[in-house]
């Protein structure tokens, strides 16, 4: 591996940085949190009941988006939306998915912090992630 020397500092070539990133991702993929998330994500994808419940809820949200933003849903509409929401979130696989997602996020946030601190840049913010994802 060739390294450039720049003002007596040994510069790591891009290939080395990307290889380290690859190894980091591979190590993260071996964690219990990632494997659990991957497993439940696949089960969720294959669960037709959960998928139907999700689609029904999302479609209704989409249809009534303007009303929701204006807080202008009728009591009947609000009740219907709440019912669809509960039908989705009550699915066991959905609850397991959210739990696994939360646990993986906690690990990734910890890793993001330890990447951010020495560099002086917020990793997530630098990668263009805002509070809305």
């Amino acid at each position, binding site marked *: 591996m060739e390294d*450039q020397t*720049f003002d007596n*500092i*040994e*510069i*790591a070539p*891009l290939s*080395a*940085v*990307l*290889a*380290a*990133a*690859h*190894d*980091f*991702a*591979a*190590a*993260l*993929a*071996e*964690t219990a949190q*990632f494997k659990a998330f*991957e497993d439940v994500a696949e089960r969720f994808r294959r669960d037709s009941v959960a998928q139907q419940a999700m689609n029904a809820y999302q479609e209704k949200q989409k249809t009534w988006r303007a009303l929701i933003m204006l807080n202008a849903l009728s009591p009947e509409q609000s009740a219907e939306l709440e019912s669809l929401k509960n039908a989705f979130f009550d699915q066991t696989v959905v609850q397991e998915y959210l739990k696994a997602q939360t646990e*993986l*996020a*906690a*690990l*990734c*946030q*910890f*890793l*993001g912090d*330890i*990447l951010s601190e*020495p*560099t*002086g*840049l917020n*990793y*997530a*913010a*630098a*990668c*263009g*992630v*805002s*509070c*809305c*994802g």
Partner: protein
Amino acid sequence: MPTTLSPQLQEAAESLINNLLASEAFVHYQNAHARFKADQEACDLMDQLAKLQARLRQKQADGEVNQAEIDSLRLLQQRAQRNSVIMAYSQSQEEAVNLLREINKEISQLLGLNFASFANHATC
């Protein structure tokens, strides 16, 4: 609950950090940051600019910004753009950010999800 990393993940994280800090982009960034911090004129100018921008943002929300204030902001921005220490710092930061994005792409491709999204603390 404190997070404990596996030895493999700890080692991989440390290696990534070390390689990042030794990259050309981050060596430039750290040097430019140090030069900026050591330059009183540059620091004062950026401080003035930040304060004026914050003040005008608030006034804009209240519908109270006038042309003279906008002109003041523009003048300060032009002074910042003519300051070589500030511009070098800004440019180096952009390059460091670009490297982080490239790394995130590498990590995310292997994982099949956006690592930065999961690493983000902020919520709406």
